[in-house]
């Protein structure tokens, strides 16, 4: 067996796995989205039936898709997700830029500790950390109590179960997803470049704007996509911290499936989410391929 054939043979495992566990499901999503819900196993209708004359008859329906387009709540969910994901991305970016830069420029001994400090929360339960914010943000929560106690406000602020809470929660959850790729990008900008710029008269801010940022720009874009894409479909944060005025794709899909037991509509929603995310996904692929240097 040659080396090439060895790799080829080994590659069948992941390729086959992806075909069955990723590609096939997408096809099934499409199939289910063309059914209607029913009380049976499985809870969606068949696509074909045989009529009296023995011929196959098309039984599929576009009901789920029609609802998606007609019912304004789904449009609101899409819009809500787009807005929230974008705001989350911006907030993460603003917080991550100084952090990632600081870690990248820190002395080597510190860097591991600082990085671990960013990664550590990521390794502890996501669910629990979001839940912690409930205690912080509720009317009797820590933030309100502190603000009331120090006299900054008179009545408790309504933060929990508003979109503001969702934004805070999402930013909190996705912060490490932005810090790490930004760090990886910044750390590759050699000190020599920055020192040369300083030597030629640039202030630190000018150096950042004219040298670092342009060099880091693909990494920054990748970091943004790494936050934006999963944030579009996030469920946990909007569900725990959001209120009645918050409607996003993740919660919409969950509710269709678990509350309404409407698998076809949930599938149609899922496919819509996938379609919306195709462009950002492709862009991320392009960026990562261009950047073939390992992280």
């Amino acid at each position, binding site marked *: 067996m040659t080396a090439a054939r*060895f790799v080829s043979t080994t590659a069948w495992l992941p390729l086959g796995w992806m075909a069955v566990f990723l590609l096939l499901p997408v096809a099934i999503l499409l199939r289910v989205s063309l059914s209607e819900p029913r009380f049976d196993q499985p809870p969606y209708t068949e696509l074909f039936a045989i009529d009296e004359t023995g011929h196959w008859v098309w039984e599929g329906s576009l009901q789920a898709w029609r609802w998606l387009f007609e019912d304004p709540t789904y449009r609101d969910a899409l819009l809500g997700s787009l807005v929230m994901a974008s705001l989350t991305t911006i907030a993460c970016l603003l917080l991550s830029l100084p952090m990632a830069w600081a870690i990248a420029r820190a002395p080597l001994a510190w860097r591991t500790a600082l990085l671990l400090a960013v990664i550590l929360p990521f390794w502890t339960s996501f669910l629990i950390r979001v*839940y912690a914010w409930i205690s912080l943000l509720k009317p009797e929560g820590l933030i309100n109590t502190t603000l009331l106690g120090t006299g900054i406000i008179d009545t408790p602020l309504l933060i929990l179960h508003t979109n503001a809470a969702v934004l805070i929660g999402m930013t909190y959850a996705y912060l490490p997803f932005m810090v790490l790729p930004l760090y990886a990008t910044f750390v590759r900008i050699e000190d020599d470049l920055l020192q040369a710029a300083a030597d030629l008269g640039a202030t630190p801010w000018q150096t950042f704007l004219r040298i670092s940022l342009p060099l880091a720009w693909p990494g920054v874009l990748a970091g943004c996509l790494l936050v934006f894409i999963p944030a579009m479909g996030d469920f946990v944060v909007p569900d725990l911290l959001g209120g009645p005025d918050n409607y996003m794709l993740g919660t919409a899909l969950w509710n269709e499936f678990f509350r309404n037991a409407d698998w076809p509509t949930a599938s149609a929603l899922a496919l819509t989410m996938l379609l919306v995310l195709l462009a950002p996904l492709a862009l991320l692929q392009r960026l990562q391929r261009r950047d073939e240097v390992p992280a």
Partner: protein
Amino acid sequence: MTTRARGPARAGFITAVSFGYAFLYVPIVLLVIYSFNDSRLVTVWGGFSTRWYSALLDNPVLLTAAWRSLQVATISASLATLVGLAAGLALVRLSGLRRALLMASFGSLLVMPDVLIGLSMLLLFVNLEQWLGWPAGRGLTTVSLAHLTLASAYVAVVVRARLLQLDTSIEEAARDLGARPGQAFWLVTVPLIKPALIAGWLLAFTLSLDDLVVASFVSGPGSSTLPMVIYSSVRLGVTPEVNALATLLIAAVALGVISAAWIHHMISRPDTRR
């Protein structure tokens, strides 16, 4: 370094960075504090107490769910490491359409929203049961399979990164010295990427332990995982046992990460004699 900011710019920079870290850790610190709070209420400090920890031990639902989650995590992490290893190898050594497909698939798995993955996996399992009779019903098997799939993408990334750093002539030397390609990979390359495999396993383990959404979609009656149980109790109202559980998890993870880092530091010291 000559490029450090000075004066007010530097102060602002430091403030921003500190705020970032504080933002990350304040909720965690609070959880730990509340777990020892004798009072149920967040705003009232009822004195130091470990009652919530004992309550944890008395909570059979939580404990069985935790045990289930550990089982699923161990199985899916171990299998994911194998699939991820094969995927990482393929991503580095293949070319053309197959590599592009593999990159796109694994790349998407890494960022796709959980609800999307959860629903599609469930539909897959439902249909597989229809066509093949397996998996029979939804339970720990389906959750393990779903976690396996998701986690293998993370392992693949870690393995790929490490493989790219390796000197390719080492495996070539093994082949030159008489090892068949498979032997060369197994005897020479795999031992050299062991740290990456361990890191990948840990990543997969954590992912599985922590997953709520995918597990909710693909699990069945009587097979709730720990996150699912926590989620339902949280929805009903703040339960202080969860704080205790959270603190335990945080302590375990912190211990694990720090000892891993320390071990890594010890191993990579150049004067280490074996």
